[in-house]
């Protein structure tokens, strides 16, 4: 794999993605995947735009630790969302853990009026670092996530309040392909103009 590596994906199927500390959690009725990174559960599906960047070590984005790397990664997303008409704030407070990623908070993640639209997670290894993001394009069936992880029905309201999608903000469904290509190009431009980014769905 040539590094930096960039990939932007809009998942087609519905999958529960669990954080590293959630390996003991049973998932009902849906396929589950377990991330190497931390954070809470994500319901991946067509409402989500995922980005992966793999950086070699050393790299300029990484020389001041994970919080600063998240900030740099988030800055690209913040400019990309602004170009789509969505102004975001970068979360800078303490880490707030939650069983669901989009109800938790971690430095660098992007909010709109205190509601999360982009989550970020990282995996640092000796020779490379993986930066992941998930941005909510459309409405998430939060009840499906709550049910799959056996949480009470009122969890749906909590998650709906804690997170926001581009569709909710813009009152129309985003063009996922165009948005994905724009994000891939923005990441490519920020990291290495000569690297070829890929977009998959």
């Amino acid at each position: 794999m040539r590094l930096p590596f960039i990939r932007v994906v809009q998942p087609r199927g519905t999958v529960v993605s669990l954080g590293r500390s959630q390996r003991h959690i049973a998932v009902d009725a849906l396929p589950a995947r377990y991330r190497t990174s931390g954070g809470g559960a994500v319901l991946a599906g067509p409402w989500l735009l995922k980005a992966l960047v793999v950086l070699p070590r050393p790299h300029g984005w990484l020389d001041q630790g994970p919080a600063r790397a998240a900030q740099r990664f988030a800055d690209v997303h913040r400019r990309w969302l602004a170009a789509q008409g969505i102004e975001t704030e970068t979360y800078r407070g303490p880490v707030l853990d939650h069983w669901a990623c989009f109800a938790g908070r971690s430095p660098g993640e992007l909010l709109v009026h205190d509601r999360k639209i982009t989550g970020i997670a990282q995996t640092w290894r000796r020779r490379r670092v993986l930066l992941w993001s998930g941005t909510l394009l459309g409405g998430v069936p939060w009840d499906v996530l709550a049910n799959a992880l056996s949480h009470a029905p009122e969890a749906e309201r909590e998650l709906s309040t804690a997170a926001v999608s581009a569709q909710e903000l813009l009152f129309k469904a985003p063009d996922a392909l165009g948005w994905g290509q724009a994000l891939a190009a923005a990441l490519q431009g920020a990291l290495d103009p000569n690297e070829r980014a890929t977009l998959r769905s």
Partner: protein
Amino acid sequence: MDVTLDPQHWDDLPDDAEAVVDAWLVVEGAHVDAGQVIARVTLAKSALDVDSPSAGILVRIVVPAGRSFRRGGSIATLRPD
């Protein structure tokens, strides 16, 4: 010798930030090489490796898997060769 998480990993995080030990990759009494990954931890949604600062014997695990620690906290004791 104390084993700690690379101080750089704590940069820009609040003073009260906590990391959690996800797994120990070696057991107490094992010999480790300098730079060997001996534990995996999570800090602010980042999965991080803890490298052995020196070759030697991992004498004691101070923070077991599933427990948290703060900036500068020793997670294990190493007796260098």
